[in-house]
């Protein structure tokens, strides 16, 4: 029995796909939303500090499934290995309903105006494809607002004098400060910084029919037990289903996008959970699988008219994979800093996001989310302290409650050689060629990191830290949970994959709506920008749908 034809197939029920499904379904289009993961819940991680989205030593909690979804990773020396989702080299996001938004830390940043015009602001960068976006912050401003109110953001950025202008304040106030915040805030002010409350996709008061955050210590990397953390799985996707126009099919992995003899997309072929190969025809297809998987799907969708995959006439699909290089500092204190009040992160500065002499871009700095004991041991090893034995145990015992970390995401310079391809040999459980990742960061990223980490260190010292040290990123490939860039937005089809409305060049009815389209990735967690682009692209898609 053939599946009923629909107006739209959306591939991937994450930050982008969830919003697109809701917008299209609300406008009256019939939508099938395909998600290769499951509808995960807090029962899938059960507050397990060794098996969650952030710490994967005993596996990852939110997909994709460990044995069926390999990738190939090529390191800087050209050495290849087949990697599983729980390994760092895999560059995983998540695979479940809501995608990364189920288990993220939920920082909700609007990019700054310069983030959309990096080349006009800073000039070209040798060895980088740094460029301007074909859209501006002003184009996205109304959609940032829509995301903040519909998905739900709390916080207070009124003291951030560097922020892009907003018309409407955030819908929810910030959570009351924790002890770290109160230690850091006056220190930042004494240094002349402009600290403010981080905007978060988290209920600080009851909102949208769900409870406020209960301030537990398991936030980033975990699903929320009281459903106070806002993702597309508890906002846009239920709203899409409630319209009656959207059907969500989980555990369905798309094999390829199907095209007809005229070069129009006609639907997708996918494996359902049995597994059985099905064909879903549609008037248009929206790809929202996240930067690695969306590029992989386009590259795997080969045909006579598109022998190198869809949107890939000029070899830009999969290129410019970027994420965020993290940098910062840790401070050890002789007084208590820990009050077990989650999520932990709460205060940030954007004083070094732009305008850093001799550098391009920068990044925000914020205090870190609560460190569970194993994370503390793993990540906060001070120079000069042995990493085992009595001295190490004494260090952990003394400083677990007397330490603060300040860190932030460096805005990376995109590198053309950092890329996603499809492997010529390795296939996944369903026989689909897997993603093959290779490349490296641009050396500028380390220079920017040096500056940012020195500011983080100065902040901690001013706050009273007796010992501080900095940590810098390496030069290996960057992607991971902030993955972006692989289907770049642009006006010129020779140097981009989608146009300013996220429509793939060369085709009438194929769209990519997720972090893949980011030209540059800001010095911020990218999810609110992904959601805003999803609202913006959906708005234009619906308008052009109604015209045709």
């Amino acid at each position, binding site marked *: 029995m053939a599946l009923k034809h629909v107006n739209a197939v959306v591939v991937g029920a994450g930050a982008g796909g969830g919003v697109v499904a809701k917008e299209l379904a609300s406008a009256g289009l019939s939508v099938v939303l395909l998600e290769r993961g499951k509808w995960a819940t807090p029962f899938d991680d059960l507050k397990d500090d060794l098996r969650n989205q952030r710490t994967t*030593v005993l596996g990852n909690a939110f997909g994709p499934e460990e044995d069926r979804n390999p990738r190939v990773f090529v390191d800087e020396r050209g050495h290849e290995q087949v990697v599983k989702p729980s390994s760092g080299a895999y560059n995983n996001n998540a695979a479940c309903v809501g995608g990364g938004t189920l288990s993220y830390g939920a920082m909700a940043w609007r990019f700054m105006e310069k983030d959309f015009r990096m080349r006009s602001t800073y000039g070209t960068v040798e060895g980088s494809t740094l460029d301007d976006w074909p859209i501006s912050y002003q184009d996205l401003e109304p959609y940032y607002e829509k995301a903040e109110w519909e998905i739900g953001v709390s916080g207070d950025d009124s003291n951030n004098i560097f922020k892009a202008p907003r018309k409407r304040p955030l819908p929810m106030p910030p959570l009351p400060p924790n002890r770290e915040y109160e230690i850091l805030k006056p220190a930042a002010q004494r240094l002349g910084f402009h600290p403010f409350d981080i905007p978060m996709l988290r209920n600080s008061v009851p909102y949208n029919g769900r409870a406020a955050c209960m301030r537990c210590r398991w936030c980033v990397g975990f699903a929320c037990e009281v459903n106070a953390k806002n993702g597309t799985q508890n906002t846009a996707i239920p709203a899409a289903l409630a319209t009656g126009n959207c059907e969500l099919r989980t555990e369905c992995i798309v094999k390829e996008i199907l095209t007809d003899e005229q070069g129009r997309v006609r639907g997708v072929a996918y494996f359902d959970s049995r597994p059985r190969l099905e064909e879903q025809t549609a008037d248009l297809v929206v790809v929202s699988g996240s930067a690695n998987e969306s590029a992989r799907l386009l590259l795997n969708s080969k045909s006579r008219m598109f022998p190198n995959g869809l949107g890939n006439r000029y070899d830009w699909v999969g290129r410019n994979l970027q994420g965020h290089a993290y940098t910062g500092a840790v401070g050890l204190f002789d007084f208590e800093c820990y009050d077990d009040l989650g999520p932990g992160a709460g205060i940030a500065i954007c004083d070094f996001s732009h305008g850093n002499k001799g550098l391009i871009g920068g990044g925000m700095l914020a205090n870190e989310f609560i460190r569970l004991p194993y994370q503390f041991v*793993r990540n906060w090893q001070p120079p000069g302290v042995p990493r*085992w034995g009595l001295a190490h145990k004494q260090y952990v015992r003394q400083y677990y*409650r007397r330490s603060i970390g300040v860190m932030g995401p460096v805005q990376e310079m995109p590198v053309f050689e950092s890329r996603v391809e499809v492997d010529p040999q390795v296939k996944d459980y369903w026989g689909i060629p897997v993603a093959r990742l290779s490349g490296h960061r641009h050396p500028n990223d380390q220079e920017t990191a040096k500056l940012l980490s020195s500011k983080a260190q100065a902040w901690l010292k001013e706050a009273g830290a007796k010992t501080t040290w900095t940590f810098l990123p390496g030069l290996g490939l960057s992607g991971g949970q902030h993955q972006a860039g692989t289907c770049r937005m642009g006006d010129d089809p020779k140097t981009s994959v989608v146009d300013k409305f996220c429509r793939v060049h060369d085709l009438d009815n194929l769209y990519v709506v997720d972090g893949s389209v980011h030209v540059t990735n800001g010095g911020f967690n990218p999810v609110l920008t992904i959601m805003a682009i999803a609202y913006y692209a959906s708005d234009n898609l619906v308008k052009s749908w109604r015209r045709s």
Partner: protein
Amino acid sequence: MAVAAATGTGLGCGAKTPWRFLTVDEARTLAALCDQIIPPDEDPGAAWAGVVNYIDRQLCGPLEELRGSYRAGIIAVEQSSRVLYGAAFADLKADQQTELMTQMEQGRAPAEAWKEIPSQRFFDLLVDHTMQGFYGDPRHGGNREGACWKMLGIPYPPIRGRLHFDVNNK
């Protein structure tokens, strides 16, 4: 006494070992190694906290690909111990144990023992897994009775909800 404390209640496949994977001798060596990585002092050490139980359990689960590494590594530790000190590792004095482990960490341990697995690689696994077993959640076999939470002064049992916690009370 470390050995008695480290003995778990596993589902061994015979009367010869209470462990799922390790032999009694392997568990004895492992307990001595782990107890130098996180020694007992005013707070429990790794062996009491069940780190050997953690390792044994995970070698039958997510870490099963490391079974060969553990077998080879423990044999190599025992071989090095005999070459250097003429005794089994668990019978050495504390400073002899830490000296051998330091040599392993720095790649200076007796070379003939470490052909199957580099000593630094095995040492890294030991440190990682000891830290996981001691500081991780008890459900995986270690952190017995929440020992590390008591040591670190984290509220125990774990708190959900803040109804009775006055966030404004300093």
